[in-house]
Each structure stands twice: as structure tokens, then as C-alpha cells.
């Protein structure tokens, strides 16, 4: 069975004589460098390249080609070699593509001598890089493993070699390129450089101006500094700040590279995106749901064990008491001690198992969090600093964090699918347990803040022109918090004020829902008026029920019921108590919305065992400018699109 590797993943190698097959859409040159235990090349002889195709243990092709077979005999390598890097580079100066982003992603596969594939890796997410380390084979406790690397270098071969500590990197890169050019001159005539040259800059500027899909911000494409740091080399080169560089698409897999010092029976080192799915986002989404379920079940196991231990102890103590003859005396004391000891033993055992499972989940969370795309990430994740307006709607949005009291620092992202299938209700009333310690004014302020944070998130993760925000703020109480949304233009028109504004906005949205529903029922979506905004709509309602008459309330209920199916959703910031005068008429409205709280509160249940999870809203860290910054980007992109 072939293992399909994702970036950073490793796989054991069954033998030492291997073949590495590389396939690319364009001629590329392939080589292999040898590293010692510090990840450095000892000298210029530790590389197999087209000008020097044979070194002891490795053989590469003499020329650039779309397909390569590298022969590797790991046993024949010098003992000092701890790592073999398989590198690909685009031949320079022959008029080919200038970056790996210009053609279909190449892939590399490790096969045995009989041709059976052991592992394969597709090098996606490359842009302007012209050299890349595809795979590395590394020694781990006497055995060899392969790891998918995919680290690109916009500076080309010279930068790649320089990163491995070779002083004469530029010189060697020139030698290699010359040899390749000579080889190409021998084989096929290079395509006419003029047309290529004319097309390339266009393609490049296009790539720079086009908003790149958010998940893979490319530091090299924007001309910024390239992160040369090897994803797995953090421990030996602690240069950067502790947070991963914003552009690094691969999270560092913890302080030690996977597999270091792992006893054979230890749990595997977690890898981000280690789940099924067609895209990295989907894999991460599934992984997060897997973690959610595992945490729910692990805690369920612990709680049921403790409950059982408690009830057994009570029973046993009762039994001692129920027999009048044995109620006092040394025998009774011994029985009581025994019951308590049994209880302690079982609880300790359950605690140890819980600890083991939680540690594993924490380790997984530490790997997954930095790898998340903006839509799944917290505001303090560096990925938001590198935010660019996405090209497509992400599959889900992080609406906050979920925790269980057993390990409050293990925060599971609460992901909801997009487009939203029900509206949201940010409860500004102090009915929840978590709200008791906060004054009601503060609660109101936090609720407004949470609504802005969620609305900004939604605006940011949708592509330009696919999301429209409306705000009803009849008494103007949220005006101050809405400033960033208004200033950046994320909110196209000022919030509707007063009863008239409420009526107007609701009327418009109700009409839209009616129209789209009619069109969909009769299958005549083409007949919709051209000025109809087809984007997803979110109506943020503040101050409910202030400014609402009966008709407006009815319309609101209609929107909550019928809106989600046609892309109109509600985000209510409301205190249910204030609308009590309407009586049970509003109960269906509250039930139709997903209730979240502005302060941590344990009111959400998971679908498996129904624990009460503490929900924490996605509030922006104090003093952070990330929201205005992101919204400015959105506004710039909108202007670029002329909207």
C-alpha cells in the first residue's frame, strides 16, 4: 500500500536500496544532498547533481527531464550522513518556467527495487520558488525513514544549497545550471524564449495582484523575505520567535522532529491534516471534529469510571453500616478503609488514562492550531496577519472555542459549516452561569464586541462580493463598536436607526427571501432581477426588541425560519428577558437560532455524549489591531474589483 504523505509526515522505509521517482509537468533537474546530524553539508562533494551524477550510494540523472529515477543505496552512504535531501530545481537560463507555481505540482515517490511504491508526496502550494526540497530520507535510531518536506526556495538552487551550510553555494549552483543547460542543448531545442518571456511576467504580476486563496499565503510570491527555516529543524536553529512564521504553511511539529527518541509503543506524533479529505482544509476540518469526538469520549470514559467508583464506595460503606453487629470495631474500619482504597485505586487509574489521552490531544492541538487557515484560526493566530481575501468560500468558520473542565487549556475549535444553516443569537442577558460575575452593562458591551468579531470573520472569509452585511441598531447603542466595520466599508450602509430604519431593512430582506424562494420553487432562478444581491446576507440585530413593532417581529421570525435556505441569516444580539412582553410568540425564534454567549459559559452539548462544553466567543485579544487590518484588506480587494 502506498502511503500518500502530507507535508511534514514521515513514513518508515522497509529497505535501504530504493528508487525515487520524480514526475513533473516540465523538465526539472533532480539532485540529492547529504547532511550530517546538524543538517549541514560537510563539503561540496556531498551532493549528487547533473554535473556530478554519481556519488557513493546515490545516482541521479545527468539532465533535466520531466521524469526522473534516482537510485539510492542508503547502506553505501558514509556513516556521518544522517539525512539525504531529494531536491528539484528548475533549470535556469533556458527559458523554462521560473517558478514551480507555473505548472502542475510535481510529485515524488519512493519505490522499492521491484517498483512497489512505498510512499508518495505531491508538492502542492508552491509559487515562485524555483528550487524545492521534495523529500528527505533520514536516519532514526538505526532505521531510515522518509519525510515529505516540500520546502521551496524563491532564491533557487543557490539559496537551497546555502541553507545547508555550503559556502560556495552560488558557485556550485552555477556549475549545475551550466551542466543542465549543456544537457538540454544536447537533447531538445529550448522553446523560443521570446514568447515565454512575454508570458511569464504577465503571469507573475497576475499572481501577485490576484488574492491568493487564504490557506497558503506565499511569502516568496509577494517578494517578502523567504522563510528559510526548515520546518523540522526548529530545535537546532532556534532563531525565529516562538510563533511560527506567518508564511510557513507547515507547522513545526513540536520541539522535536517526528520520530525522535520515540519508543516503539509510544503514541504516534500527531501531524496536522491527519484525516480524510479532498483538500487540506477538509482534512483539518475532519481532524478537528475527530479531536472533538475523542475528547468527548475520553472524558465520558473518565467520568463514568469515577461515577462508578463513587457509587461502589457508597454501596460498600452502606453495607458496612447496615449490619448492626459489624458496624463498629476493627473489622468495620478495615472494610471502610478497603472501600475507600478501592475507590482511590480506580479513580487514580481512570485519571492516568485520562491524562494519557489528554496529553495526546494537547500535542495534536499544538500541531493543528498553527496549521489552520484563517477561517478556522483564532484571531491571535499569525495566519491572520498574513491574511488575504480568499477566492472561495471556506467549508467552515470557527465560531469560538470549546473546552471541558477536565483540561481547560485544551481548546477545541467550534467549527460551523458555511454557508450557515441557522442564525446566531449572542445572548446578552445574564441567564447563563458564566455571566453571573459580570455586570449587565459589561455583558452587553461584550456581546456587541462578539457580534462585531463574528461579523468581521464572516466578511473576511468570504470572497469579495459574496457576503453582504446589514446592521439594525435602532437606538444606536452599538454605534461605537461598529466603527471598524463602517470605516472599512465592510458595512456598505450605516446601521438602520429608529423604527423606520428597522422596518425598511426588514422589508428589503423579506422581499429578497420571497423573491429567491419563488424563483427557486418555480425553477426560474434566471428570472431574478439583475440588481438583486446574490451574495450571502447577514442581518445583525442590536437592541431587540427596541424599535420593533409587531409587523417587524413577524418579519424577523420569517427571516429566521425561511432565510437560511436562501442565504439570509440573522445574528441577534439580544437579551431574551427584554422581549418577554411578547410572550411565547418569540420562543420559536430563539429556538431557531444557535445560542452563543459573550462570556465563557457551559451551555453547548456535543452530539455524542452530551457533555456541557464551555463556549468561548472569538473575541479579539485586547489591543490587537487584527480586525481593522483584515477589514482594510477586504476594502482594498473590493476597490480592486470595482465594487
Amino acid at each position: 500500500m502506498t502511503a500518500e504523505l502530507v507535508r511534514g509526515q514521515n513514513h518508515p522505509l522497509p529497505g535501504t536500496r530504493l528508487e525515487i521517482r520524480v514526475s513533473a509537468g516540465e523538465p526539472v533537474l533532480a539532485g540529492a544532498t547529504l547532511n550530517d546530524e546538524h543538517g549541514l553539508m560537510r563539503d561540496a562533494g556531498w551532493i549528487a547533481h547533473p554535473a556530478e551524477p554519481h556519488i557513493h550510494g546515490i545516482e541521479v540523472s545527468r539532465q533535466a527531464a520531466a521524469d526522473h529515477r534516482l537510485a539510492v543505496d542508503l547502506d553505501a552512504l558514509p556513516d556521518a550522513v544522517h539525512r539525504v535531501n531529494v531536491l528539484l530545481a528548475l533549470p535556469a537560463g533556458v527559458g523554462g518556467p521560473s517558478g514551480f507555481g507555473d505548472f502542475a505540482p510535481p510529485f515524488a515517490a519512493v519505490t522499492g527495487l521491484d517498483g512497489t511504491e512505498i510512499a508518495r508526496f505531491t508538492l502542492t502550494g508552491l509559487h515562485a520558488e524555483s528550487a524545492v526540497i521534495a523529500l528527505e530520507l533520514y536516519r532514526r535510531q538505526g532505521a531510515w525513514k522518509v519525510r515529505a518536506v516540500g520546502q521551496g526556495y524563491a532564491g533557487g538552487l543557490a539559496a537551497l544549497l546555502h541553507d545547508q551550510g555550503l559556502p560556495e553555494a552560488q558557485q556550485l549552483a552555477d556549475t549545475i545550471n551550466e551542466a543542465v543547460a549543456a544537457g538540454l542543448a544536447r537533447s531538445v531545442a529550448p522553446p523560443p524564449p521570446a514568447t515565454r518571456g512575454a508570458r511569464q511576467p504577465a503571469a507573475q504580476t497576475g499572481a501577485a495582484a490576484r488574492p491568493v486563496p487564504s490557506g497558503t499565503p506565499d511569502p516568496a510570491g509577494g517578494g517578502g523575505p523567504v522563510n528559510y527555516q526548515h520546518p523540522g529543524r526548529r530545535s537546532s536553529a532556534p532563531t525565529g520567535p516562538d510563533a511560527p512564521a506567518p508564511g510557513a504553511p507547515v507547522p513545526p511539529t513540536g520541539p522535536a522532529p517526528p520520530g525522535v527518541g520515540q519508543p516503539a509503543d509510544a503514541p504516534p506524533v500527531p501531524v496536522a491534516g491527519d484525516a480524510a479529505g479532498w483538500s487540506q482544509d477538509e482534512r483539518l476540518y475532519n481532524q478537528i471534529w475527530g479531536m472533538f469526538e475523542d475528547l468527548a469520549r475520553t472524558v465520558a470514559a473518565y467520568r463514568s469510571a469515577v461515577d462508578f467508583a463513587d457509587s461502589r464506595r457508597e454501596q460498600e460503606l452502606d453495607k458496612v453500616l447496615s449490619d448492626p453487629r459489624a458496624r463498629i470495631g476493627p473489622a468495620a474500619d478495615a472494610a471502610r478503609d478497603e472501600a475507600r482504597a478501592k475507590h482511590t485505586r480506580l479513580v487514580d487509574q481512570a485519571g492516568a488514562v485520562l491524562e494519557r489521552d489528554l496529553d495526546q490531544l494537547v500535542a495534536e492541538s499544538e500541531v493543528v492550531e498553527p496549521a489552520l487557515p484563517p477561517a478556522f484560526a483564532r484571531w491571535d493566530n499569525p495566519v491572520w496577519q498574513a491574511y488575504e481575501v480568499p477566492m472561495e468560500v471556506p467549508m467552515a468558520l470557527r465560531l469560538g472555542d470549546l473546552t471541558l473542565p477536565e483540561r481547560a487549556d485544551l481548546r477545541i475549535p467550534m467549527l460551523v459549516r458555511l454557508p450557515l444553516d441557522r442564525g446566531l443569537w449572542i445572548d446578552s442577558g445574564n441567564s447563563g452561569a458564566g455571566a453571573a460575575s459580570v455586570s449587565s452593562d459589561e455583558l452587553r458591551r461584550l456581546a456587541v464586541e462578539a457580534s462585531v468579531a463574528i461579523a468581521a470573520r464572516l466578511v473576511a472569509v468570504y470572497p469579495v462580493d459574496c457576503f453582504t452585511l446589514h446592521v439594525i441598531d435602532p437606538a444606536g447603542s452599538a454605534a461605537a463598536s461598529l466603527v471598524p466595520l463602517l470605516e472599512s466599508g465592510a458595512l456598505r450602509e450605516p446601521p438602520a436607526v429608529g423604527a423606520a430604519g428597522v422596518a425598511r431593512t426588514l422589508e428589503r430582506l423579506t422581499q429578497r427571501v420571497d423573491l429567491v424562494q419563488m424563483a427557486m420553487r418555480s425553477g426560474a432562478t434566471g428570472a431574478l432581477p439583475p440588481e438583486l444581491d446574490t451574495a450571502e446576507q447577514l442581518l445583525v440585530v442590536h437592541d431587540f426588541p427596541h424599535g420593533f413593532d409587531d409587523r417587524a417581529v413577524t418579519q424577523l421570525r420569517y427571516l429566521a425560519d425561511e432565510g437560511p435556505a436562501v442565504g439570509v441569516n440573522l445574528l441577534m444580539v439580544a437579551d431574551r428577558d427584554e422581549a418577554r412582553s411578547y410572550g411565547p410568540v418569540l420562543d420559536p425564534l430563539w429556538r431557531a437560532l444557535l445560542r452563543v454567549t459573550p462570556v465563557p459559559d457551559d451551555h453547548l452539548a456535543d452530539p455524542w455524549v452530551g457533555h456541557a462544553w464551555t463556549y468561548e466567543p472569538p473575541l479579539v485579544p485586547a489591543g490587537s489591531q487584527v480586525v481593522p487590518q483584515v477589514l482594510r484588506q477586504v476594502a482594498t480587494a473590493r476597490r480592486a474589483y470595482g465594487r
Partner: protein
Amino acid sequence: MTVNMSKGQAISLQKSDGGTLTAVRMGLGWQAAPRRGLFGKRTKEIDLDASAVLFADKQPVDVVFFRHLVSDDGSVRHTGDNLVGGAGQGGDDEAVMVDLQRVPVHIDQIVFTVNSFTGQTFAEVENAFCRLIDETNGQEMARYTLTGGGQYTAQIMAKVHRQGNGWQMTAIGEPANGRTFQDLMPTIVPFL
């Protein structure tokens, strides 16, 4: 290597290399017996159900069956209800997977049962078997044949219980009557 178990026989779930098992599966397969008489080719559908009851100190604390497919702790999973059977010859129609490492510490016995939900007796079932498989390598460790079970609608198949640090399996093979596992509780208790 498969052990054909007989009633009351116990086998330790230690691997031959000394390591303990981490995951086992109880598989259940059957075929409906062909009907005699007119339209004899038509087979009557039989719905057998596999269930697993989790005990802590002889008290049932959780059960995995067709209406509760995963135990709350996630360690025991049912593959889902099969209403007609059919594979019978080697393939499992229903299976219960047990991740022994994840079983909560207070659970010390897991009892596997089979019921005929549609009420036919085992005399009408063909090629029915229950087997225990090592999930990690797919090897069958034990097999119990139901066929010819007589006028019973249920059977308590086997139990997996803690033994020292590992687990052991004991074949029970006790016939009983009942539509779901709840009806079997009185019969199960003496075997705990």
C-alpha cells in the same frame, strides 16, 4: 490459527509474541435457512442482532447494540444493523469492534450476545457463526458455530474480561430466549 471453541473454554488474548491485543472484533454472520414446501426457494428473512454489554463489577453500565452504536466512551463500536444476513460464509454481517486500550478502567467484562430480532429460532438459520478477530492483523482467534442451535432465539456468545494487565476471552455459548439483549440479562448474570 483458529480455535474452534467449545462451551466454557477460555483463551487468553495474548498474542503469540507475548504482546497484548489492542483491538478485537466480534463478527456475526448468518444466512436464512431455505423454507420447505411451496415456493421453497423463497427464503424467509432473519434479522440477527449482535450486542455487547459492558459490565463494571457485575453491573451493566453501557451497552452497544443497533440503537446505540457507539459506547459513550467510544471504545466499543457496532458496525450497524444488518436486517437480513446473507454473507454467512466467512463474512461478517454485523460486527462489534472493541478497542481494548480505550475501554474505561472500571469496565471489567464485556459480554457479547446474539438475538433473533424477528423471532425465528436458530434452527432456521444457516451457516451462523460468531467469531473473534484480532483487529490489528485480521486474524481469527476463535470461532463459535451457532448452526443447529435448536429452539432458541438468543445466545450468549462469549465474554472478554480483564485478567491481570491483559484481557481474556471465555466462550459461553449459553442458549436463551429474547428479542433484544435486555431480555437476556437474567441469563447473562450467572456468567459474570
